[in-house]
C-alpha cells in the first residue's frame, strides 16, 4: 500500500523556535509553542548553561545524585547522563537513595530507582533511617503524630544524604529541587520571617565551611511542569505517587497560592526566584557595649561585667545554645556538622526515644502508615 501523503503543516502551526516542525506543546515557562525536538533542545541546554554558569562540576568529579525514584530525580539522573556524555563533563555519577521506611510508598519508589540503576548504568547506594537512627518514618509518625512528620523527615534526610555520600567517599550531592520548589522556599522564608535563610535560599550551590559535602540544584530554573513533560516525552520510568504523609499545613497554603499565581502568570515562578536573588538584609546594628555599661551602672555590676567580657550565650526555646564560632562545629553526640552543641537530628531522636513504647507486641504491623493501608485496600476485590 502506498504511504499516504502527509499534509503540509500550516505556517501558523509551526514551532516558534525552528519554524520547521509542527508544534506539539506549549512551553509552561513562557507559553511558546514548540516541537518536541526544540523542547528537548532548550530544556537540556538551559540546564547545561546553569551548570556552566555556576561551575558546578570539575573534570573527574564523583557526584552523588539524590534519587527518590520521583520525576525530578529520575529526570536529573537521565539528563546528567546525557549532558555528561554530550559535553564531556568527565563525571562519575552515582545514585544515592534514602530509605525513610514508609511501607507502601518508599519501598515501591526504591524499586523504580533500582530499575533506573540498570537503565542508566550507574552504581546505587541506599541508606536507611533504620540503619542510621534505628527508627523508620512509620514508627516516628506512630509515635509523634502525622503533623510533624515533615520536620523529622527533612532533618533526618539531610543528614542521611551527607552520610551516604561520605560513605561512598563523595563530596558533592546534586538534588532534583526545581524552580517551583525554589519559589516556594522564597515565599515560605518571607511568610515565616526567616532571616537566617532569606538571602541564600536561592543559591544553586550550598556549602557551609567545615562541611565536607557540597550540595547543588541544577534544576533551579527548571519548571516542574517541564520536568514532567520531559519525562513524559522521553518515556522515563518514574514513580509518581505523593508521599502519604501530607505536607505541613502552612506550607500547603503557600503551595496553593503559588499554583494559583502560576495559573494567571506563568513567569511568576522565575519572577519570585529573581526577587529571591535580590533579597538583602540590612546590616545588623552591633550592640553598643558602652551603652550597656552605662545602663548597668549602679544597678547590677554583674550584668555590665558580663556585657564587657562579651561571653553571653543565647539559649534557644528548645534548650539548645548558640556557639559563637558558627561554622565547623560538630555535634557532641554524633559528630555531624551542627551550629549547636547537639545537632537537630540528635535532639529530635532523643525526644522520640522518650516516648517510644517500652514493650513491643510481636509481629505488630500497626506502625505501618497510611500508605500500607491504601495499598492493601487497592488489592481488595469482590
Amino acid at each position, binding site marked *: 500500500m502506498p504511504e499516504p501523503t502527509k499534509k*503540509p503543516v500550516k505556517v501558523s502551526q509551526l514551532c516558534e523556535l525552528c519554524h*520547521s516542525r509542527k508544534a506539539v506543546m506549549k512551553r509552561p515557562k513562557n507559553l511558546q509553542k514548540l516541537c518536541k525536538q526544540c523542547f528537548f*533542545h532548550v530544556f537540556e541546554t*538551559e540546564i547545561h548553561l546553569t551548570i556552566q554558569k555556576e561551575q558546578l562540576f570539575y573534570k573527574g568529579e564523583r557526584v552523588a545524585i539524590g534519587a527518590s525514584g520521583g520525576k525530578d530525580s529520575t529526570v536529573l539522573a537521565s539528563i546528567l547522563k546525557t549532558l555528561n556524555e554530550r559535553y564531556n563533563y568527565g563525571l562519575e555519577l552515582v545514585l544515592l537513595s534514602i530509605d525513610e521506611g514508609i511501607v507502601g510508598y518508599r519501598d515501591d519508589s526504591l524499586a523504580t530507582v533500582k530499575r533506573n540503576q540498570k537503565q542508566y548504568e550507574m552504581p546505587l547506594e541506599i541508606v536507611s533511617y533504620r540503619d542510621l537512627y534505628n527508627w523508620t518514618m512509620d514508627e516516628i509518625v506512630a509515635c509523634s503524630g502525622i503533623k510533624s512528620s515533615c520536620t523529622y523527615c527533612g532533618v533526618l534526610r539531610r543528614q542521611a544524604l551527607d552520610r551516604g555520600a561520605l560513605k561512598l567517599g563523595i563530596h558533592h550531592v546534586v538534588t532534583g529541587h526545581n524552580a517551583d520548589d525554589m519559589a516556594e522556599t522564597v515565599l515560605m522564608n518571607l*511568610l515565616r520571617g526567616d532571616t537566617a535563610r532569606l538571602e541564600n535560599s536561592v543559591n544553586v550551590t550550598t556549602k557551609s565551611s567545615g562541611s565536607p559535602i557540597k550540595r547543588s540544584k541544577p534544576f533551579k530554573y527548571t519548571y516542574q511542569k517541564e520536568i514532567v513533560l520531559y519525562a513524559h516525552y522521553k518515556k522515563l520510568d518514574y514513580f509518581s505517587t505523593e508521599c502519604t504523609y501530607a505536607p505541613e499545613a502552612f506550607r500547603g497554603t503557600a503551595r496553593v497560592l503559588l499554583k494559583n499565581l502560576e495559573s494567571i502568570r506563568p513567569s511568576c515562578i*522565575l519572577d519570585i526566584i529573581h526577587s*529571591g536573588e535580590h533579597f538583602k538584609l540590612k546590616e545588623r546594628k552591633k550592640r553598643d557595649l558602652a551603652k550597656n555599661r552605662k545602663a548597668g551602672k549602679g544597678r547590677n555590676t554583674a550584668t555590665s561585667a558580663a556585657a564587657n567580657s562579651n561571653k553571653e550565650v543565647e539559649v534557644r526555646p528548645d534548650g539548645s545554645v548558640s556557639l559563637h564560632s558558627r561554622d565547623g562545629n560538630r555535634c557532641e553526640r554524633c559528630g555531624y556538622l551542627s551550629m549547636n552543641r547537639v545537632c537537630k537530628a540528635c535532639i529530635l531522636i532523643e525526644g522520640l526515644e522518650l516516648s517510644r513504647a517500652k514493650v513491643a507486641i510481636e509481629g505488630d504491623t500497626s506502625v505501618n502508615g497510611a500508605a500500607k493501608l491504601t495499598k492493601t485496600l487497592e488489592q481488595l476485590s469482590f
Partner: protein
Amino acid sequence: MSEEKFKVKYGKNLEDIKAKTPTVLLPVSFGESSLVLLDIIVSQLEEQSAMNRAHIGYKLVVVIIDESDFDNTKIDIKDHVQKLKEVSGTDLLDKLDIKFKIIKSESYVTSNRLQKIFLTHDFQSFSGKSESDLDLDLKTILLQTSDKSTREDLLNIVRKETILRTAIAENCSVILFGHSMSKLADDVLSLAVKGRGSEISDNLTDGIIEYERSNLHILHPLRDILFSEIKEYSKLCGLSEISLNISEGTTVKKSIKNKTINELIKDYFRSVEVEYPEVISTVVKIGSKMAHPPTQDDFQIKNCILCSNSIYNDPKHWLEQITVHGGAPLELEEEKANLEAYLASVKDKKSDSLIHEADEVVPLCYGCIVNLGTTGQSGFIWPTKRPSKQEILDEYVLTDDEGDED
C-alpha cells in the same frame, strides 16, 4: 509622628515659625485606612490648635487622585470630597488650614512625552518615537495590555508618581501613607511575586527618599495596625459610610483566572490570617529589615524608563542565561521546506520592522520586562522620563487655573 518637627511650635516670630512648620501630604484613596488616618490627624491638629499660644506643628495637604476618567464606577470625586469635608467638619478644616487637592491621574500622561518601548527576543529594550500620532489618554495606554495584573502594576506606578509629583508641586517635605499592616504585607508579597524584590525596602521603610533633587520624608503611621482593626475604628467613627470600599468584597466572586496578582495575595492573607494571625506582622517585619541589593560585576545602577525604580543587576543578562532561544537543528527535507514557507510568510511583515535606527537602548527593570512581555511584540506606548521640578510646577499652575479644588 512623634518626631520633634510635628510638635506644636511656640514663639512670636511668625516667619520663623512658618519656616519650621513642615507641609505634610496625605494621599486619600477613600479606602478605610486613609480615611482613618485623616481622622486621626485632624484630631491631632485640633488638639494642637487648642493649646495656648501654640501654633500647629505641621500644615496638611490632602491629595485625592481622580481616576473617574477610566474606571467604570463613574464616581463623582468632588461630591465625595464634599461629603468627607462635612463629616470632618468644614469649619474645623478651614480653621486648621487643611487644603484638599484633586489631581486627575490623567495628568501623569499629559505632562510627559509619550514614547514607544519595545522588547526584542533577546530581552533588549528600545524606545523610540512611534510612527503613529502619539496622543493617547491613560485609559488607552493601559488598554494596550489585556493582562489585568500588568494593568494594575502600571496603575500603581501612575499613582505613586502622581503622589510624589504632587508633593513637589505643593512644596511638601513629608508624605504620610495610610497603609495598614495588612496592606504592607500584601505589598511585600506581591512585589516579590512580580520579580520586584529589590523594591521592597524602598516601599516599606520609613525615611528620606530623593526625588528630583528634593528630599521627601516618607512615613507609614498605620504600619502596626491590622486592616481589621482599622475597619472597626472606621465603623465606630462613622467613616465607613463615606469610604468607597474600592477593593473590598469585589474579588470574592471572581474566578481565580480573572483575579490579579494583588487580589490573589490579598485573598491569601485574609484566608491564612484566621489560622495563622502572626503571618502578616512577620511579613512586614522581614520586609522592613531588607536593604538595597548589592550590584554584581561592576554594574552601574540605572533607573527603569517605565517605573523609575533602580535596577541593581542587568535583567537582560539574567534572562538570557536561563532562557535559550535557538531551536534544534533541522534534519528532514520536509522541515526545510516548512522553514522556507515560514520565511516567505514573514517576509512582508519584516519590511516594517519594529526597530528603527533612531531608536535607543533604554534601561528596563525586571518587573517591567515581565509587564512588557504580556503586551505582545508591537511595542508599548508609555510616558517616559520624569519631569523636572520646574516642569512639575509649570504643569501644576495650569491645573490650578482650571479651577481644581482648593
